[in-house]
């Protein structure tokens, strides 16, 4: 037995040595750290789509590696460091909870570039990027106000973090521009990802009389409920038309691919720089799925709003933004709320008849 083991070990070692020297071509190694499984069809899946696009565009000039289902706690720092140690020179860390671990590892590997998604701490070799998803929410709010007969939007929230809160507010501001009396019912499911629970939440909303469903959770479960109940819904993260051919009005699509390709090219050319990238409809980091299942005038309105946001004519959080207490929010950005205010939003705007959890 011992002999077999030793023989096996030696053989393994010899092989490994061979394969390592063979694989040492001048490729840019790119690593990605994912929060969920690549097959979640939500947040992580869209990052995976971005990775595949990098491979497609840059081919054998790069080599990519991903680590999936990486817990945001003690495991993430190791996962990021393992990638850095194994020669990955550009590392995307794709969840907010990876912020501090990313910075810690970045300190140890000053020559490696890090891209952290949805965070706000940066360093020489750590840049941040995220999408202005609230821009899409505004358009959805307008469509919802037009399409809802009852004037009530059902909203399935995951966790009350600023991104989700600003999404609710953007929806309401958009909807109020059409129907000042629009109402919203919010259910927090306290998970990003539990199809059964998301479906239950959607049912509860429909049974309580909403006729449009919005979700800020990852799976297409709510879309399917909308389809089977004959009401409308909006997709999240990716185009979910397949799950609601008669229900989906449009969807917010997280489109990371162009950014990933661009940053990979910069890194290859030695031109990568740390920055704060927060792109929306204009740069196509946030995209709208085709406007479907709505009359032409609504479609026209949506298209025009999208064009107005893209051209910069319309800002979603244009001052005055009125809080729940009826008082305008301090306007730090001159004409609009500034980015810091939007990124840290923890209050509802006027018209939301609910309380932000934890406040």
């Amino acid at each position, binding site marked *: 037995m011992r002999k077999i083991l030793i023989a096996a070990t030696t053989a393994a070692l010899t092989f490994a040595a061979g394969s390592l020297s063979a694989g040492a071509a001048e490729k840019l190694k790119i690593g990605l750290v994912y929060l969920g*499984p*690549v*097959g*979640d*069809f939500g947040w992580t*899946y869209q990052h995976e789509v971005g990775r595949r696009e990098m491979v497609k565009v840059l081919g054998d000039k790069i080599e990519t590696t991903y680590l999936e289902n990486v817990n945001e706690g003690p495991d993430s720092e190791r996962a990021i460091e393992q990638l850095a140690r194994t020669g990955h020179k550009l590392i995307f860390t794709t969840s907010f909870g990876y912020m501090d671990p990313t910075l810690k590892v970045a300190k140890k590997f000053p020559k490696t570039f890090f891209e952290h998604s949805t965070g706000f701490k940066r360093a020489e070799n750590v840049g941040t990027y995220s999408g202005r998803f609230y821009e899409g929410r505004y358009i959805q709010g307008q469509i919802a106000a037009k399409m809802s007969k009852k004037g009530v939007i*059902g909203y399935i929230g995951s966790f*009350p973090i600023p991104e989700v809160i600003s999404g609710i507010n953007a929806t309401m501001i958009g909807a109020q521009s059409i129907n000042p009396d629009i109402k919203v*019912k*919010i*259910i*927090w*499911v*306290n*998970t990003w*990802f*539990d*199809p*059964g*629970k*998301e*479906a*239950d*939440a959607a*049912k*509860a*909303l429909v*049974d*309580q009389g909403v006729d449009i469903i919005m979700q800020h959770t990852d*799976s*297409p*479960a709510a879309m*399917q409920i909308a389809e*089977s109940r004959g009401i409308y819904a909006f997709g999240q993260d*990716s185009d979910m038309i*397949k*799950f609601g051919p008669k229900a989906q009005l449009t969807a917010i699509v997280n489109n990371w691919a162009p950014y990933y390709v661009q940053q990979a090219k910069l890194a290859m050319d030695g031109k990568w720089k740390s920055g704060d990238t927060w792109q929306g409809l204009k740069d196509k980091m946030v995209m709208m799925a085709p406007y479907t299942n709505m009359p032409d005038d609504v479609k026209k309105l949506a298209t025009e709003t999208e064009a107005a946001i893209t051209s910069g004519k319309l800002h979603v959080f244009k001052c005055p933004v009125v809080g729940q207490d009826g008082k305008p929010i301090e306007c730090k950005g001159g004409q609009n709320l500034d980015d810091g205010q939007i990124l840290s939003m923890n209050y509802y705007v006027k018209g939301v*008849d*609910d*309380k932000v*959890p*934890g406040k």
Partner: protein
Amino acid sequence: MGLLEAIILAVLAASTPLLLAAAGELVTERAGVLNLGVEGMMIMGAACGFAGAYFTGSTIVGAVCGILAGVGMSAVFAWLTLGLAVNQVAAGLALTILGVGMSGLIGAGFVGERITAVPQLWLPVLTDLPFVGRILFGQNALVYGSIALVIGIWYFLYRTRAGLVLRAVGDNHASAHALGYPVLTIRTFAVLFGGACAGLGGAYLPLAYTPFFISGMTAGRGWIALALVVFASWMPGRLVAGAYLFGAVTILQLHAQGAGFGIPSQLMTALPYLATILVLIVISRTRGTIGSAAPASLGLVFVPDR
């Protein structure tokens, strides 16, 4: 459709996978085997169930595939714990790791795919009855199946000789063996039955509940099923009550949020768990017996002398 009717319908849909998986585990545990791998068997049932339905277009084939997946998983477990006398707790947990991994590999090809859900019963006149119509006569086959399953299990355990033997094996395997009953064979069948039910319970998710597969979609339901067996103190009737209680509180807290009561959502989400504990304390207290309901040989290794 009235709100109460709608809530009951949602509760039935949410509770059925729990009931199916828990019913199988109940039989397994009644035979004296503790299989903690329910989550792993369920997620495999979900993956294989979806695969079967996706390729054939038949939800019946899907359900059968789910059952077979559960049986296959539990066969591994049975071979280890009964054939090789491996510790049941550790083997069950390892089974869950294996199931989660395998289902992910199987499901990798189905991202973004969907199937048609299991049809719901529709009977002329009856289904259209006010209030009770949809609840009693408008469900899918798996909902009726889960009820029938529990009734069948009750009948089997308490009204048949085979059931009596199974309970005897679970309560005292040494005596049962001395009386000449094939303890390991009976336990093997009980484990396989548990696997079949867990597989079907898992398959219910992509076949009826949310007709698509996503890795990890069981989201801990296997653990809840295990807890429900304990909650039911190994009695089929109480299992139904437990599963529906859990489902009901889950659904009601969502409705309470939609109605905007302003209670922290974390507290609302915790309600089903707290309610289960509370009810268990109340019923345990009125019963006044401590832990006596559990099959006495539960989780113990048995190797017959030869």
